């Protein structure tokens, strides 16, 4: 394993080239660096990177479709786009080299799980412009797994294939994995006996430790968290090892900083803040100090597994998923953690935000578990009050809890829709 100094040398060499490549081939960066007074030819140390200005998602959108490309189009092999749910999509381009290291980065997760040619990888991230499907696909091929490109959807068919093809590694969003597990159980299938899974590589949305434990219990496998984003590559920027204690950053391809999202100041290791990434050797669409809007921290110290690549902590949410409720910052994952302390309710939930006068009203909808004895109205009201008061003490925000009918919260095949914000509507 490479000592960390060796990784830093790789990073410095790569970043020197990246900033010059950006300056010379991407008009946006040329202008950005000039305006900020950043000299791309004067980078001598990794700390010098801090002198470079940030790049934001809006910058990427403004340069849609090909404005951020640093290579001629004949060198581009693949295109991906972010979902663009909040506006214009952001575009990522990949050269042969970019695809190769992407596969390698994702494959690390499979290798961490001791996976390889003996494994059957069942991929039900959505295939297409979303980086989940093909990112996992490239990784699975790189690791030599037998690759089943299921894509998302048609859950009963997923279950049939999982049973019949003997899939050993499952790759999809954590919420879809849970949906598969629950559907299988409802169909009278016992995934512990009828599936052959050993590991799951799940990402594209944040999930709590409790959610992970529930998945592991239902599917009898080990869940590894994978992180990534289209703007820098896709899944594989960081992946957990079997220690399940933070995600190892692919530091040979990405340079990470944690900043205070308000001031932009770089924070020391261990402190929570926004993750900022610079690509080390991305050719088609390199980024310099890209603000991911994901909240995490660098975990200080070495991992018990012995790998020297530093770890980021499991995501605390995104700066844009963060709900500001009556001035208090709330992450959906915190709500999940409280919910998991009640065995009367399932893990599905939806947060509904409305405004009454000038006050934010938060309603948390949860579904009861089959074992919940609900014969009396007061039992239901008591449970709603108990959840509410535990949320209040954990988050310092009053949240109204509503128990709703089973399966009335919509299931998703991609990213789960956890928050519905109707605060803009007139009440």
């Amino acid at each position, binding site marked *: 394993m490479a000592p960390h100094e060796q990784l830093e040398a790789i990073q410095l060499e790569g970043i020197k080239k990246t900033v010059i490549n950006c300056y010379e081939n991407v008009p946006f960066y040329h202008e950005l660096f000039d305006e900020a007074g950043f000299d791309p030819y004067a980078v001598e140390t990794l700390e010098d990177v801090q002198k470079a200005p940030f790049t934001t998602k809006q910058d990427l959108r403004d340069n849609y479709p090909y404005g951020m490309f640093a290579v001629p189009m004949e060198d581009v092999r693949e295109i991906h786009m972010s979902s663009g749910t909040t506006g214009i999509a952001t575009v990522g381009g990949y050269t042969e080299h970019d695809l190769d290291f992407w596969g390698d980065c994702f494959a690390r997760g499979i290798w961490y799980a001791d996976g390889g040619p003996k494994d059957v990888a069942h991929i039900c991230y959505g295939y297409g412009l979303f980086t989940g499907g093909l990112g996992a696909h490239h990784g699975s091929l790189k690791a030599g797994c037998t690759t089943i490109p299921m894509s998302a959807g048609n859950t009963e068919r997923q279950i049939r294939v999982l049973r019949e093809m003997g899939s050993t590694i499952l790759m999809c969003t954590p919420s879809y994995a849970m949906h598969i597990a629950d559907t299988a159980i409802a169909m009278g299938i016992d995934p512990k006996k009828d599936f052959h899974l050993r590991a799951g590589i799940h990402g594209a949305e944040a999930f709590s430790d409790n959610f992970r434990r529930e998945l592991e219990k239902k599917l009898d496998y080990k869940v590894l968290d994978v992180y990534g984003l289209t703007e820098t590559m896709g899944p594989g920027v960081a992946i957990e090892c079997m220690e399940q204690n933070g995600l190892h950053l692919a530091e040979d391809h990405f340079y990470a900083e944690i900043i205070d999202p308000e001031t932009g100041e770089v924070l020391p290791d261990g402190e929570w803040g926004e993750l900022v990434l610079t690509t080390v050797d991305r050719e088609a669409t390199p980024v310099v100090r890209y603000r991911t809007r994901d909240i995490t921290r660098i975990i200080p110290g070495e991992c018990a597994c012995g790998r020297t690549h530093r770890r980021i902590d499991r995501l605390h949410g995104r700066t844009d998923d963060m709900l500001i409720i009556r001035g208090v910052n709330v992450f959906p994952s915190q709500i999940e953690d409280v919910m998991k302390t009640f065995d009367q309710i399932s893990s599905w939930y939806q947060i509904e935000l409305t405004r009454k006068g000038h006050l934010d009203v938060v309603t948390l909808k949860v579904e*009861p578990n089959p074992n919940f004895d609900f*014969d009396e109205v007061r039992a*239901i009201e008591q449970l709603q009050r108990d959840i509410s008061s535990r949320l209040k003490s954990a988050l310092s925000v009053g949240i109204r809890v509503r*128990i709703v009918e089973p399966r009335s919260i919509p299931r998703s095949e991609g990213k789960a829709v956890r928050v519905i914000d109707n605060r803009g509507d007139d009440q």
Partner: protein
Amino acid sequence: MLDQVTVFLENDKGRLSALTRVLSDADINMYALTIAETSDYGLVRIVCNKPEEAVKALRAADMRASVTEVVAVTVPNRPGGLAELLQKFEELDLNIDYGYCFSVAGEEAVDVLKVSDAKRASEALAAAGYRLVTSEDL
């Protein structure tokens, strides 16, 4: 003692109708149905001929249903019939969570009561000469 089916339903258009359709498709005959409602949801309580099957059918239709043990007791159909029964509960120091009238026929009415200790209540009522209605009687 009598098996009652309790169903958790959202207080929304069409939900009760969906419930009754499920029971009708499962060929279940209801003898009594009562609703305890709040602004968000309701609890529907049903006495029917096949409570276990009813719960199975409702769960298969993604509804949260369960069987609850209740006490069904025959009282005289005249002023004071229920009052005397409730007096008995007071003497036994048993709290009634909820109740409803199940049927009225001629000289008799049947009341359904949910009490915390259905077994003790049944025994005490039987000892006091009350006639209890069981699932088999229906």
